[in-house]
């Protein structure tokens, strides 16, 4: 079955990203397809490469990136939500005159249409939030 995953909260503050990760990983291991993982609202903060959690804790961002690498996942950060919260890639940095980027290379920034398309193309939309 084809799933789409929507994540509304950032890493660590809420369990949403953890639950979504475990759901996604389990679904993939069971042979399901993940059409897209869409990071919305504070969920965009899951896509920064600048986090350094304590060594005895999970690394929420890298874990998503590694799962993405293993299964060739489409990890999409919403551009409008990202602009408000300071998640930036090269294109955004150039457009908005920012002197740095913080997006993790395994994620990409794109529009809200990607969420709507994911809901259309997948058979189930799973929402993880606060």
């Amino acid at each position, binding site marked *: 079955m084809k799933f789409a995953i929507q994540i509304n909260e950032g890493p660590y503050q809420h369990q949403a990203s953890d639950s979504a990760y475990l*759901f996604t990983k*389990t679904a993939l291991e069971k042979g399901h397809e993940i059409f897209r993982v869409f990071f919305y609202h504070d969920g965009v903060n899951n896509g920064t490469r600048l986090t350094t959690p304590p060594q005895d804790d999970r690394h929420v961002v890298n874990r998503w990136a590694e799962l993405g690498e293993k299964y060739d996942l489409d990890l999409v950060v919403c551009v409008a939500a990202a602009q408000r919260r300071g998640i930036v890639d090269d294109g955004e940095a150039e457009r908005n005159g920012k002197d740095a980027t913080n997006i993790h290379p395994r994620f990409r920034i794109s529009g809200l249409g990607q969420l709507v398309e994911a809901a259309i193309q997948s058979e189930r*939309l799973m929402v993880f939030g606060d």
Partner: protein
Amino acid sequence: MSELHTVNKSPFEKSSFASCLEHVLEGSAVLLYEDGIYAATKGTAVEGKLKSAQGVKFYVLGPDLKARGLGEDRVIDGVEIVDYEAFVDLAAEHSKVVAWV
């Protein structure tokens, strides 16, 4: 196929569990996870809500229950304890998933 509703917040802290129950139709299922698992435990002041939901099948996510130190013996009779594999199965088997975030 019926719907799967998910609730991830404590019934003591937020009204999402109560609101979910007010909109669940007979034959549907509700999965309690994260802080939502507290709604599935025995002897609480809100236990009656779950028990009085007619014709609704309840599931609770074992990993979240265990994390919070609550043993399987604390779960209200009739609520099924599931793991992430079963969570995925439930999402696939039901016609859609409604998240009461």
